[in-house]
């Protein structure tokens, strides 16, 4: 006949972020390695050549770190004042950096002394970069000018003074050696063409521009400034494609991942946000301090974030190999091969097949439920492993007992130890909106059953005290939420009815019910 139907563990979606492949990808970083620098880290740049060393510009020096080393493998310290914007050339052999005094220095990676010094800027140079031919350097300075220098002869080729405020962002084109993009505190982003010697395109960002970034196809341009990140379509003559406002402080840096060109932005609000291709935030990295600079290694192997407090935090990608070593350490049971022996046997034509009845494997608590051993089933469901790693299973068993009308029987007749277990479970999960309803019920029944004997056990009494506190807090919180809801309601009633409908759509959670039940239980607790 019909076989026993096992307890169904309902799959309840967790509120909040949804787990997608993207989040899994971005979550797959190890915990960050912290390296302390001397001052605020203003620029990080990865070398295009393997092993992808990276240059970190902080205070008066530039350090070059290897991919896994925590000590700099080389440092350039010949700066009299703060250094800015250390960047590699396309072949990774030369490095250029500006400085507070207006001098631009060019280093050989293996050398220590500057190969060239470009003099001409009167104020600090925050941004320097090689043009893609590798023979010219472009720099943006606080003296409102943008200059192009010839590397071999160290002379200034041209000076562009179209910006009316500090130039703090610069991005050379990789496809055309004559093009580069600058962003300035005068709220504009300009595309310069060296052939014409002037800007060919101007975009209004609306806020002081902190960073500009070109997509590899160079059809899209990203500019950050203020709280906004804007993406411009250069092929459409600089039309604004999308404007993102996901940070709540100035967005200071942006970079593109090399896998799938995902945009990452870092901000003074200590967050790094990862956008998917439709510019929705899919992941968020939290940092300890305001972020000034950020870079991601080719193949997303490492993410380096520089902060105002001088801490460089580097996250390395976790690889499958690491995981395997973890699992191999675990004790392995008998091999699966034993159970599937003869699985691939194909019967011959005249073989007589004796079909074996499919055995139904039941979980332990299901077996106990099948034989109506309700207390034992609850004990099984409250075992440490189930309780901690799969609370939904525990709650499913509780719901099943409730449905059978035997929850009270199952909870009755327990000693201090098992009661502590139950109360601890309640304390931990009673506010999970997925579980709160059945657990509040369990709480009610426990109070009813053990009212007389609570005072005999100090442990249980303490737990109950805590439960009461927590419930009281939750009730208060719900009260406040209801008040907010009331305020919102009054606001929305003044709007059109159409808006009202929209509001209802986005708030399907019944807050009031929950609140009432919480407060009733807390009242029960306080009675004792």
């Amino acid at each position, binding site marked *: 006949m019909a076989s026993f139907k*096992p307890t169904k563990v*309902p799959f309840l979606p967790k509120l909040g972020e949804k787990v997608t492949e993207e989040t899994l990808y971005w979550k797959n970083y190890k915990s960050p390695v912290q390296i302390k620098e001397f001052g605020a880290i203003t620029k990080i740049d990865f070398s295009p050549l393997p092993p992808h060393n990276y240059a970190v510009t902080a205070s008066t020096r530039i350090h070059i770190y290897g991919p896994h080393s925590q000590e700099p493998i080389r440092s350039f310290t010949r700066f009299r004042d703060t250094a800015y914007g250390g960047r590699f050339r396309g072949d990774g052999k030369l490095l250029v950096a500006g400085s507070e005094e207006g001098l631009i220095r060019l280093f050989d990676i293996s050398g220590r002394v500057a190969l060239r010094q470009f003099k001409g800027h009167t104020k600090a140079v925050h941004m320097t970069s090689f043009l893609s031919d590798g023979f010219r350097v472009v720099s943006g300075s606080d003296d409102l000018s943008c200059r192009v220098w010839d590397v071999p002869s160290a002379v200034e080729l041209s000076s562009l003074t179209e910006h009316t405020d500090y130039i703090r962002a610069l991005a050379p084109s990789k496809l055309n050696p004559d093009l580069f993009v600058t962003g300035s505190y005068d709220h504009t982003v300009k595309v310069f063409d060296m052939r014409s010697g002037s800007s060919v395109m101007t975009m209004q960002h609306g806020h002081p521009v902190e960073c500009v970034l070109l997509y590899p196809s160079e059809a899209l341009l990203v500019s950050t400034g203020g709280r906004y990140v804007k993406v411009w379509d250069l092929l459409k003559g600089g039309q604004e494609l999308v404007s993102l406002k996901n940070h709540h402080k100035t967005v200071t840096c942006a970079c593109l991942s090399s896998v799938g060109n995902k945009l990452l932005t870092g901000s003074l609000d200590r967050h790094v946000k990862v956008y998917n291709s439709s510019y929705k935030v899919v992941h968020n990295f939290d940092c300890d301090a305001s972020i000034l600079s950020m870079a991601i290694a080719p193949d997303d192997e490492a993410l380096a974030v520089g902060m105002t407090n001088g801490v460089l935090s580097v996250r390395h990608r976790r690889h499958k190999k690491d995981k395997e070593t973890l699992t191999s350490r675990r004790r392995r049971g008998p091999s699966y091969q034993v159970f599937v022996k003869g699985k691939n046997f194909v019967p011959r034509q005249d073989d007589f097949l004796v079909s074996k009845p499919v055995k139904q494997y039941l979980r332990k608590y299901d077996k106990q439920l099948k034989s109506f051993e309700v207390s034992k089933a609850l004990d099984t469901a409250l075992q440490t492993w189930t309780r901690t790693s799969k609370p939904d299973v525990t709650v499913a068993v509780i719901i099943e007992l409730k449905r059978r009308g035997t929850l009270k029987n199952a909870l009755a007749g327990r000693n201090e130890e098992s009661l502590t277990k139950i109360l601890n479970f309640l304390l931990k999960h009673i506010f999970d909106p997925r579980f709160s309803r059945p657990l509040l019920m369990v709480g009610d029944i426990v109070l009813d059953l053990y009212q007389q004997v609570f005072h005999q056990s100090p442990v249980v009494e303490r737990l109950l005290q805590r439960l009461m506190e927590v419930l009281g807090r939750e009730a208060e919180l719900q009260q406040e939420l209801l008040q907010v809801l009331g305020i919102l309601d009054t606001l929305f009633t003044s709007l059109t009815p159409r808006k009202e409908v929209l509001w209802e759509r986005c708030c399907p959670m019944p807050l009031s019910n929950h609140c009432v039940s919480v407060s009733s239980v807390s009242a029960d607790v306080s009675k004792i």
Partner: protein
Amino acid sequence: MKITGLSHLFKWENLHNWWLTKYFFPPLFVLCTSGDSVKVYSTRTEEWLHSLQGHTNQVTGIALNRANHLQVYSCSADGTVKLWDFIDGILIKTFIIGYPLFAIYVSEKHDGIVFLHIAMDTDSKNECFQLVAVHLPKSAEQEVEAKELSAVSSRISPNPSCTAFGREGQYIAFARHLQLNVYFFRKQKTYSFSLKATDKKGAKNAFTCIACHPADDCIATGHEDGKIRLWRNFIHTKEYTYSTQHWHHNAVNTLCFTPEGTNLLSGGIESVLVQWQYGAGNRKEFLPRLGGSILHVSTSSDGQLFCTSHSDNKITVIESSFKVCGVIQGLVKGDAVLTDLMIDPRSKALVLNGKPGHLQFYSLMRDKHLYNLDIVQQEYIYEAGLDQFEVVKAAFDINGYWLATVEERGQKSSDLEFVLKLWAYDERTQSFVLNTTITAAHTDRIISMCFSSSEETTMLVTTAEDGQFKAWCQGADADTQQDQSFWSCEFVGSYHNLKPTNCSFSADSSLLAVNFQEVITIWSPDTWELLTTLCQPPGVVRDLCFGRLSCSKYLIATTTRNLLCCWNLLTCALEWSTSVEVSKLQPDPLSENVAAFSYQSKHTDLFVFKPSEPRPLFTHKNMCSEKIHRAVFVPREEPLNNCDESSQWLNRSQLYFLTQNMDLLTFSTATEEDRMLSSSKRLVIDDSVAVTPFYLLLGKHRQQQQKLNTPSHPAADKPQQPQGSVTITELLHTPAHVLPAASVLCSMLVSSLLISNTGVRKDPLREMESSEQEMNSEKEEEHSEEEMEACDSQQELRAQGSVDEVTPKLSKAQERELKRIRKTDFSWMTGLIDSKP
């Protein structure tokens, strides 16, 4: 308005529980009483073989004739005992007793005597029953009056399982309330043993059933609190003993000893068949989860098979090794039909509540239970008074791809739990697969739901007591990037915090009507704009539906203040209204018609009308005395072309409705009845040809050809009587393995199919042959057609004349089954046969 005599109301056969499943002698057959007939089933194939019809009232008991094991007695409330040959389904004798009978018992020792329960007083309220022995007179006549009644006892429980015969008929044991009586035939003495009503532990000791050991002096009794007592030594009033065994947690419904007496079987509401070893104390075996609560257990006379009947209209056949080997399932009769009656658009099966937590699919065409769909997917606990999840709402979308169900628990208590589930049809497994589960669809109970009726988009609308209605749409989740798409809420609507009750989509799904108490709101599902409101106070709107086809611009609503209103949605004005109390409004999906059941002064009237005109097409007053809440139009497989005006509305679909007594009724037209009768005549076959599928398909093909040939000739519409050439008959009758090689037969067959050119029409056999050959060959000569018709009609007359003499009766279900076979298209076969010559 006329009440037509043509539409005839009949009770649909299969909705009644098995009263008693009794005795099935050679383990080939199971007999059970069912309404006013006894049904015979095969234990091997679980197929219904035939039913023994003849009683005019409820059959209350059956018992095998101990003298002849191929005969069975049945007793009925119409006051007769009938003796049947159950293998062939022939009524042998009728004994007229004259009182309503309630149970029958026979014993080996008392040949020619049956024991019957009859009511002592005429009013059955008293429930005073009497056990009488009736001597059945031996006479050759068909109908015999048996008047030799002798009372055995008057202290009899109305429950027929509270009486049993002891070892070889030496004594009879019967119980009532708390008293067990044993009557010894030899001593002519009754011994009584009584129990206390309750003991210290609050046990309820009332007797519920009795079984006597076949070889030992032992009586097993079942009690209300689930105890089983085994009584021994009851020959002495004082020194009797009993031992108690307790496993059942509720009343024991039935007890039965196996024929050898080695085991005792018991069953109750737990739906667990328990086998106790006799004399081995507490050793027992269980067979759990059999279905509804067990009402009756019986064993075959050789002890090979057991058989249990269940409250949900089911018989389970169990081997002696305690394995289920067969299930005979009728229309599952639950406690109540909470869902509407529905038609699965794919299988055209009727869908309603079945087993607890299931939906059953029942084919009305074949009168057969198809399958149960498990909605709740939880272990059902057989316990009285436990609040279980029950399917309360269900709806199909127009293509049958989606099924939405609502299950509910805790209607009585304050904390209501309900789950909305959406099921997708899986082509591969040919059944519904759970797609989405929505646990908190609304904050309060869902009152109604409906799918949109357009083919392009599927949308579900639910209305709930929390004052909101929600639209659910199927859509891929953009974030998860999965192929499967789930259902999510698209829109929440409300109207002045009033409670919505009904919702309905217009025929093209461009409008959604939701009524909020007195007000009907019309919404556009595309933009979710409130288009207009309609109102006809006073009275809350009870039911709501849009017109179909040409009347789709009308909206019909019924109110609690006995008003049936029809609005024109183009003008948003009331078109007409009439004062009638309507309990159920049911639109026909295939035509404009709407059926309204009106319950007034304790009887139900049916009105069928078109929304475009206020005058009903058809009225049937005083249809039945119960209120009707569930009805459904079932589309016909092929539309009738009934030209009679009053029954035209039944042409495309058939109306089924469910009364409060859970009887499923339908309307059938006069032509259908005629056809059924004529088909029973048509299907009578002369002895020369067996009813083989070949015969049926040949007959059908012939019929088609005839129609083609003579479209306007009414006489030729009836099919040919079976005539086969001698050769073909021989061919079809001879077993294949003794036939000569096909090459030898071929020439014979071909020559038999050739047109004979004798032209002599006096010899009837020849005539038949020739006409058949003409049927089978498409390219016959033009001039012979008239002749053939003439001879056909002659033949028809002849054949019918002969038929009337030896009409073996075919039951309705058999006729239906045959009709179904006839309908299936086997013409490809005849095509093959035709192509051979």
